[in-house]
C-alpha cells in the first residue's frame, strides 16, 4: 500500500474534508513544499551561521564560567530541537494511529534520524561543557540520563520501522513506541525541578524572569531559531525525497506490470 501512496485511490476519503486531511495527499504536499525548500534552506543557513558566529566570537564570556559558556550557543538549541523533534514525532505517530494519515508515517520515519542527530550533538556538546565545569564528561544526573533515554528512543524508533518485513507493521510498532516515549519529554523538562541535579536549572523562562542578559540571550535565540529552521528544512527535504522515491518505485512497478 505504501508503494503507491501517490495514487488517488490510496488517499482515504475523509468525511470532514478538514485542512488537515487535505494536506494528507502526498502529491499536494510535494507541490507546496518543493517551491518553499530553497527559501527554508536559505533562512535556516543564514540564521544558524549568524547565531553560531555570534556565540563563538562576539558574545561576552560568562562572569563565572568564562568562555566555556559559549558551548551554550550550540548545546541549548540542539537540546530544544531534539525535544521539539520528538514531540513532532509523537504527533505524527498519533495521526498515524488514529487517522492513518498517509503522510504521518513518512514524516515520522524522516524525523527520526534528524532528531537523533540533534540529540547526539546535544549530548556531545554537553559532555564537552561538563568536563571543564564539573570535572567529568558524564554523570548519571536526571537531566543527562533522560536526554540519553531520548536518544535511545530515537534509535529504537529508527530500528523498529525497519524491523519488520512488512513496513506497515514497522510503522505501527514505531508509532506506539513514539507515543509511549513521549512521557520522557516532561521528565526532561522538569527533571531539574523534580530532582536535585548537577545540571543547572532553567535559565530562560517564557513567562518572565529569565536569568540571562540580552547580550547572551539574542545570539542564543537566533541560533535556536536557526536550528529549528534547519530541522524543518531537513525534514521537509527528506519527506519530499521519500515521496518522490515512492512515486518512482510505483511508476517502475506499474511499467513492469504492463510489460509482464
Amino acid at each position, binding site marked *: 500500500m505504501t508503494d503507491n501512496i501517490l495514487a488517488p485511490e490510496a488517499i482515504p476519503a475523509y468525511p470532514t474534508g478538514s485542512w488537515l486531511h487535505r494536506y494528507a495527499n502526498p502529491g499536494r504536499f510535494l507541490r507546496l513544499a518543493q517551491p518553499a*525548500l530553497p527559501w527554508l*534552506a536559505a533562512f535556516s*543557513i543564514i540564521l*544558524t551561521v549568524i547565531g*553560531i558566529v555570534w556565540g*563563538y566570537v562576539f558574545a561576552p564570556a560568562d562572569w563565572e564560567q*568564562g*568562555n*566555556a559558556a*559559549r*558551548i551554550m550557543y*550550540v*548545546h541549548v538549541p*540542539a537540546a530544544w530541537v531534539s525535544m521539539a523533534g520528538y514531540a513532532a514525532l509523537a504527533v505524527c505517530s498519533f495521526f498515524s494511529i488514529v487517522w492513518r494519515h498517509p503522510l504521518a508515517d513518512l514524516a515520522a520515519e524522516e524525523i527520526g534520524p*534528524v532528531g537523533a*542527530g*540533534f540529540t*547526539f*550533538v546535544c549530548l*556531545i*556538546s554537553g559532555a*564537552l*561543557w561538563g*568536563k*571543564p565545569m564539573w570535572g567529568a564528561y558524564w554523570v548519571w544526573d536526571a537531566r543527562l540520563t533522560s536526554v540519553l533515554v531520548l536518544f535511545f528512543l530515537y534509535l529504537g524508533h529508527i530500528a523498529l520501522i525497519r524491523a519488520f518485513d512488512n513496513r506497515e507493521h514497522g510503522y505501527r510498532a514505531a508509532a506506539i513506541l513514539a507515543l509511549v516515549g513521549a512521557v520522557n519529554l516532561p521528565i526532561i523538562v522538569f527533571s531539574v525541578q523534580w530532582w536535585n541535579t548537577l545540571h543547572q536549572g532553567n535559565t530562560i523562562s517564557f513567562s518572565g524572569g529569565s536569568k540571562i542578559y540580552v547580550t547572551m540571550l539574542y545570539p542564543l535565540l537566533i541560533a535556536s531559531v536557526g536550528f529549528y529552521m*534547519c530541522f524543518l528544512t*531537513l525534514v521537509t*527535504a*527528506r519527506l*519530499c*525525497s*521519500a515521496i*518522490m*522515491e515512492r*512515486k*518512482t518505485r510505483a*511508476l*517502475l512497478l506499474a*511499467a513492469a506490470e504492463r510489460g509482464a
Partner: protein
Amino acid sequence: MNLTPFIDGSYGITVLFLVGIFGLTYVRYRSAVKRLAAVEKRP
C-alpha cells in the same frame, strides 16, 4: 584549564553534523528528483 579544545570541539561537532546532514539530504533530494524525472520521461 585550557577551554579552547572543549569549545572548538563542541562547535566542530555541531558544524560537521549540520554540514554532513545537509549534504546527505541534498544529494538524496537531487537523486530523487532526477530518478523521478527519468522514469516519468519513459514512454
